[in-house]
């Protein structure tokens, strides 16, 4: 089984060949957006973090920004900083440069300010775009593929069809030597005991229970019933009654292989196999976290037909809901509503999802990609000062 991709200097493989502008801090977004208008084929990874953050929250933002820059789908990065922020452009550039990919920095408060920075940035982008354009796709096996998995706009068809079928595709990636990362800690509340049985070690099991416990304690500290936030109103309209029901369906998307580890949000795994990322269920943050772990492709299982995408990693959307497939087909890459019509087994549908994954990795555009739909949103866990 072969897919084609772009080999990077560190031996990793990208399935897209992007040049990206990465602001180190939200104050530099304006510069990144202006440069993006000058070079519309460049990804602008604008976000809202990077300064005035404390402790774990700052560390998490820095780790995520580094992970986004390191994602193998990106051939080169222009890091744009202000020069006064806590997560500096130089720090991000140094960390991302460990992959030996092209990295340039631009600091707005350097001599000459904005008017000097813009032409300097243009020169860097121009150079990297030309360089990247000369890289050719070559065939690889799946050992250097990291697949991210997310479910969203969940309804009761998700747990019956699209999540278990996605799980089949996940198992096939692992059997081919690849890595799979799924997450959404609130959405394993009530199902953690099932996932914990597959933990590869006692340490992994304990870390999984701790992640769920910490998440549930945050809900309790708010004094609120989780219902209404998760399951969200759209989930409830789709027949999901409680977080436990949602979770029992949600864990099926990760397949049935042993769980090798629990990652922090945006943490790059050090081994192959199946991993759980401790993070939120909300779509933009969950997808951004998966891109930061190094996931080159993401499968998104949806009941209600979310248009979700993200900038760095192509998002393949799968639905098992016949109404969604019919009414929102423009959002859906793989229609597996055949399962509920009794025309196809979950296993066969999973095989079709896997096949689409190979096609997308090799260059086929997903629906979200053709729309250019998506944004970067880093999970923020502390106050802004």
């Amino acid at each position: 089984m072969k897919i084609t991709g772009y080999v990077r200097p560190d031996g990793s493989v990208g399935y897209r060949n992007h040049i990206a502008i990465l602001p180190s801090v939200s104050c530099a977004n304006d510069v990144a957006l202006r440069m993006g208008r000058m070079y519309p084929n460049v990804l602008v990874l604008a976000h809202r973090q990077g300064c005035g953050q404390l402790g774990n929250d700052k560390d998490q933002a820095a780790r995520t920004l580094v992970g986004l820059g390191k994602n193998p789908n990106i051939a080169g990065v222009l890091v744009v900083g202000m020069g006064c922020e806590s997560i500096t452009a130089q720090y991000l550039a140094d960390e991302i440069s460990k992959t030996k990919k092209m990295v340039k920095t631009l600091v707005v408060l350097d001599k000459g300010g904005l008017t000097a920075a813009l032409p300097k940035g243009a020169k860097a982008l121009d150079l990297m775009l030309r360089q990247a354009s000369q890289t050719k796709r070559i065939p690889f096996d799946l050992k250097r593929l990291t697949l991210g998995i997310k479910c969203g706009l969940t309804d009761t068809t998700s747990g019956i069809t699209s999540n278990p079928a996605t799980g089949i595709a996940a198992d096939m990636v692992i059997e081919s030597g690849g890595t799979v990362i799924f997450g959404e800690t609130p959405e394993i509340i009530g199902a953690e005991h099932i996932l914990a049985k597959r933990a590869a070690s006692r340490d992994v099991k304990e870390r999984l229970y701790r992640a769920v416990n910490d998440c549930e304690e945050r809900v309790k500290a708010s004094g609120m019933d989780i219902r209404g936030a998760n399951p969200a109103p759209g989930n409830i309209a789709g027949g999901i009654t409680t977080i436990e029901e949602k979770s029992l369906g949600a864990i099926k998307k990760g397949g049935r292989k042993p769980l090798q580890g629990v990652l922090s949000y945006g943490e790059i795994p050090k081994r192959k196999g199946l991993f759980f990322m401790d993070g939120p269920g909300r779509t933009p943050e969950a997808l951004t976290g998966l891109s930061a772990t190094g996931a080159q492709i993401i499968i998104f299982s949806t009941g209600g037909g979310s248009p979700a995408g993200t900038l760095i990693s192509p998002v393949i959307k799968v639905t098992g809901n016949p109404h969604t497939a019919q009414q929102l087909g423009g959002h859906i890459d793989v229609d597996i509503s055949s399962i509920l019509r009794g025309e196809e087994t979950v296993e066969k549908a999973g095989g079709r999802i896997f096949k689409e994954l190979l096609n997308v990795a090799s260059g086929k555009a997903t629906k979200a990609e053709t729309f250019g739909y998506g944004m970067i949103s880093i999970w923020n866990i502390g106050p802004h000062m």
Partner: protein
Amino acid sequence: MKIAIIMDPKDNVATLLSDVEKDEMVQARLGETSTEERIQELIRFGHKFALSRIHKGANVVKYGEIIGRTTQDIDKGHHVHVHNVESLRGRGDKR
């Protein structure tokens, strides 16, 4: 006949695969076996109904696991959802 799915033999609810009117019969499938059940009120696609009478305070079971607890008695064939089931987890409001 319209179809409902039972995910596990331990379940006391089934998921409808169509909108179903009051007094309509549905075929509730569990793997290769099935039973016929009368639906007692309008219930939408993807929503659940009780396979037997579930008393107030009893567990609601789907996928063979507890998904919540009833807040009132639910008769066989009636809609099981947020109006008569509560979550046991993530309840900051109960602290």
